[in-house]
């Protein structure tokens, strides 16, 4: 079973997830006890934060808080992407502030009335088809973690033996060496030389070592 990311769970708990993603996630939560508990934990955390704004509570679940912050950064940067497209050349630091202009509302009522009755079934089929296409698109394109990485990497390159594989990322671009179909047997990072992950194919005994580096520091 494919589980939603921590970021999506955090956004869902806060009511900030996009409608279709929220629908898919809600469906998943009906059958997944673990994710439901995590979503509830995020909701509790959010409530705690709201009541303890002045002073952060001791024993804070920083991992959960980080996931929520990263998710919100992603939302902000996604808005920034749209703004960048809308206002090319705008300073990057201000992109998040520049929300895109609200889409013009369709004159639904007048459109409906202007359609002749024989066309209505065709419009309904077209609308349904669009819905299905959008759904297929959404399900086959889970959110990627592009934006939060970009947020982290504005100042310095980051080397990670974290999540899937090892990665070097900087300025919104990333090179990730993905795990082969073998078991991860060890991970380490070298302060200076890069991040490293080791995989062992338990069937054949073949070891594959992945490393990423930045600059001339290896």
């Amino acid at each position, binding site marked *: 079973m494919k589980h939603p990311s921590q970021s999506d769970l955090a956004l869902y708990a806060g009511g900030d997830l996009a409608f279709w993603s929220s629908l898919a996630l809600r469906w998943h939560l009906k059958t997944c006890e673990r994710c439901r508990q995590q979503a509830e934990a995020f909701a509790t955390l959010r409530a705690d934060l709201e009541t303890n704004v002045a002073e952060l509570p001791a024993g804070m679940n920083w991992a959960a808080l980080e996931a929520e912050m990263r998710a919100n950064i992603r939302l902000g940067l996604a808005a920034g992407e749209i703004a960048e497209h809308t206002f090319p050349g705008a300073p990057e630091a201000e992109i998040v502030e520049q929300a895109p202009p609200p889409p013009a509302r369709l004159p639904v009522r007048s459109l409906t009335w202007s359609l002749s009755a024989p066309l209505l079934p065709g419009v309904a089929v077209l609308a349904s088809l669009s819905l299905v296409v959008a759904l297929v698109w959404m399900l086959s394109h889970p959110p990627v973690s592009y934006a939060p990485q970009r947020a982290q990497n504005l100042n310095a390159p980051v*080397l990670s033996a974290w999540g899937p594989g090892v990665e070097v990322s900087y300025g919104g671009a990333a090179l990730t060496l993905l795990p082969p179909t073998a078991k991860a047997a060890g991970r380490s990072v070298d302060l200076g030389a890069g991040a490293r992950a080791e995989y062992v194919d338990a069937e054949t005994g073949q070891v594959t070592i992945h490393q990423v580096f930045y600059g001339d520091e290896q």
Partner: protein
Amino acid sequence: MATNSKLALLALAALPLVAQDALDPERAFRVLLPAGAPVSLQSADWDQSKATARGGALLVDLHSTLQLKNESPRRIRAVSLQVVAQEVTPGGKGAVTVPSLDVAPGEAFSVRIDLRLMRPLARAGNALVEVSLDGLLFDDLTFYGPNRLNSRRSLLAWELEARRDRRMLLTILNQGGRDRLQEEMVQASARLTEQSGVELRVARATAEPSGRELAFAFLALPGAPVELNSGTAWVSPGEARAPRIQMTNRSNRSVRAVEIGWIVQDARGRQFVAGALPSEIEIPPGQEAQFARDRTLRFARPGQPPLEISALSAYIATVEFADGEVWVPGRAAPGLSGEMRRLVELYRRHGLASVLAQLQRFQ
């Protein structure tokens, strides 16, 4: 037709609309092997590779199995390939290394490449990936290759540790029989389980050190040519920053690189081998030197609170002398070597017979 079936048909009809493109191998990949190299490329299958636009990013997934052939008269023990996508991640590069090989002259072997490139859609540029040879290690411990990623040292250290550990296991087998060898593998398996589960990330430290300054405890390993004298790092929950370590070259030869292994202990006393601090550092015989890195190292355990670091330990993991010789610790080294991790995985899957087969194969 039922409504669900209609929806399924509509979904199938819509699938071709997904923006996913197969990549042109001529434009996306290049495998570079120098003329006269001891290995040749037999084939490279990039069929599973694709480019996908998602949100504001372009993702390029590259998957291939490179079939290489040993063209030399010697047995190959390890290979290291450099992976570069200069247009996507300037300054960033990767390496795919396969150690513990035993490839006879004329034999073919495979190296799997699985990578993902991500760049903003708005950024122009080609996603060309170049795979080139960085180094080969033969069974007589000679090395071939440009060594741009310092793979010589790491391949040599791996092979020396592997020989040491296989020799140790053979001694146990000869002296205590299969039961004693099995006991050793069970113990190693338990140690491997203890050490897994920590994820790591390193970045340049961009702010003043915060938290508290913690002194390293040093593990003295017999025969180490370099001695660690003193050192500190700044620690805060889930994070260690800006390590500084003073060391002395106790040998009569110049040292050109030192790798320091370090172990993190949490508040509950559990220890994690966290990684290594490699350093290209010239230390003349009998002289002192300081290792310092302005880096932040973050630890995480998925689904658990940040690691409370209560103690830091360090030991000399590898020393490379100026003449190219590499020293690795004896049996007393903490943690498991890469070869022991490999043998443990084989033992867990196939039992003692597979370990015995490996010991005989490399004898």
